[in-house]
């Protein structure tokens, strides 16, 4: 009897871990993209909008082609295109980064709702479930860790590769120099604005992947406004992680854990109105933000020095 209970709880715990990784991946992909922007000195408040447009683009591509990968390609392209629009305005026309990012978010909300008409009734075709051969059959770990969509592992790999790239690779250092001291980078002969645009477009593509992951894998359907603040949470995460990729990943899983805990508690029939539980991830984000921002010096040391500042090459 006790065996049965233990078995049951361990199984449901494995599912909880799996769901946490799943939910965390959405935010991790987007947040890694934003980290790329911010390391190059650009704040893009348009994450929510980019992710929404990417979610519908990915979903539409998925419905029409029946292929996940076409969906992800479409999502990444949509995110990159939105980011390019933002990038050109901010980097070459020197518009205010905050205002332009907000415009991108508001525009994305409208555009995605417009493009998504008709897709709410459409269903994605049946697609294969993923499992890593051999490992997926392990008790507990199989369910928890080895039956995920490949993008879950891609996100982990990305965080590690990005850490190496930003700290060790020449091109990664160039990107950081543009975010720390664009004047010096310019003096060294780097195309500051070109590098920033690349970083913004690349970051947009990653946000797009995150958006497409929502509509293709996380909750496979299209609902207006389905990103539900995850773009903003991804933005908060870059600060939380003090602009380090691996910490972004951990932060994303933490967020995923809180989200899933809320569903789990609801499933367990906890006597708390569901609305209070739905609030949890947003409240958690605020708490985390407060904790990390408490020490301004700590943030200042870690923040890219020219974050949010426009760069005009000397005439």
């Amino acid at each position, binding site marked *: 009897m006790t065996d049965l209970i233990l078995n049951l709880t361990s199984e449901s715990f494995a599912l909880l871990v799996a769901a946490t990784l799943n939910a965390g991946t959405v935010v991790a992909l987007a947040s890694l993209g934003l980290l790329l922007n911010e390391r190059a000195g650009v704040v893009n408040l348009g994450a929510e909008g980019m992710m929404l447009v990417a979610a519908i683009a990915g979903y539409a591509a998925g419905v029409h082609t029946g292929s996940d990968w076409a969906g992800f390609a479409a999502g990444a392209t949509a995110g990159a295109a939105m980011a390019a629009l933002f990038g050109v*305005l901010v980097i070459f*026309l020197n518009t205010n980064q905050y205002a332009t990012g907000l415009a991108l978010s508001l525009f994305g909300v409208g555009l995605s709702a417009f493009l998504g008409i008709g897709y709410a009734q459409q269903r994605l075709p049946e697609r294969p479930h993923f499992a890593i051969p051999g490992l997926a059959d392990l008790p507990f770990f199989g369910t928890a860790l080895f039956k995920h969509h490949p993008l879950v592992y891609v996100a982990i790999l990305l965080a590690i590769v990005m850490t190496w790239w930003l700290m060790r690779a020449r091109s990664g250092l160039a990107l950081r120099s543009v975010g720390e001291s664009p004047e010096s980078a310019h003096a060294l002969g780097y195309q500051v604005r070109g590098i920033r645009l690349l970083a913004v477009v690349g970051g947009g593509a990653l946000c797009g992947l995150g958006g497409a992951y929502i509509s293709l894998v996380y909750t496979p359907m299209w609902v207006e406004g389905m990103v539900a603040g995850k773009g*903003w949470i991804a933005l908060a995460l870059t600060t939380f992680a003090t602009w380090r990729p691996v910490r972004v990943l951990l932060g994303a899983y933490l967020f995923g854990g809180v989200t899933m805990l809320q569903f789990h508690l609801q499933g367990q029939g906890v006597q708390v109105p569901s*609305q209070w539980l739905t609030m949890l991830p*947003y409240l958690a984000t605020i708490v985390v933000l407060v904790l990390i921002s408490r020490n*301004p010096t700590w943030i200042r040391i870690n923040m890219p020095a020219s974050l949010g500042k426009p760069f005009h090459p000397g005439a």
Partner: protein
Amino acid sequence: MFRLEPRPAPSRVLTLASPLIALAVTVLVGIVLFTLLGKDPVAGLRMFFVEPLRNSYAWSELTIKATPLILIALGLAVCFRANLWNIGAEGQFIMGAIFAGGVALRASPESPAVYVVAVLLAGVVGGMFWAAIVAALRDRFHASEILVSLMLVYVAEMVLSYLVYGPWKDPQGYNFPQTITFLEAARVPRLMQGLRANVGIFVALAAVAVFTVFLFRTYQGFQMQVGGVAPLAARYAGFSSRRALWTALLLSGGMAGLAGALDVAGPQGQLTPYVPVGYGFAAIIVAFVGRLHPVGIVFSAVLMSMFYIGGELAQSRLGLPKALTGVFQGLLLFALLACDTFIHQRLRWVAAK
């Protein structure tokens, strides 16, 4: 190649022309969109720019939408001028609606007609309370006001949902998530029989006057703007940035809360989960398109209301998606920001090196 170079002085003509150019760009894109969707562009534009102004009913609906937009945008203009990015006005709007609703639900058939004043004040307090959280966390812990105010939008939505599904649900409402319809004493008086327009629009216009005086004729308004444009100069002059932070956030929160109160005690008449319709976000666009100037905000709020009503009309009469409203609103802000570039800079042809 073309090159952007700074102008010696900002162009006055462009400062005023830029919103109009942006509108022209938006209209052009609209024409392309209508054509792509296989509709007559002239009929489409009529829905957005003619029909919302055609008769007294249309004008009445226009004031219903413009009132909250003006009120919220006024507060946001102060924030943005002080370089504070309160983008959670939607949450403050909801909290204002909740507080106002709470007071309105306690009205009795004997309540005097001035009861509605208490309802509106409660809304102001609700919005201020929600913004005060943002101010406190920014002041005490340096937490980004952008992210905190935005997260609080989702929290406010959940609080509203909890109340209308739970303790405040109308027992005779067939289990719909809604409160009872507020009694007459708790409702904002209408201007005319048969039209939804109410005295809220006069509240909004009075606020425009007050904010014009505050921004351009008071020392405190001046201090806040200096703090926004040149924080170091403000510090050197001894202007308190903390005071500016609290003033701007409480003001904008209070205005958003008032807008929420006017909306639930006015056209809505009860609390439902559908109280938030995005006025708080649209007001960001209104504030920018209105040049962060109270008078400009009136014009841009009317324009934005025309987009709302036009979107609804385009849906019911032409079978076009209502979501067009959001697309046009976003586009307008984009176009405006791009045009604004040329206020401080000009394009000049430079021979390639």
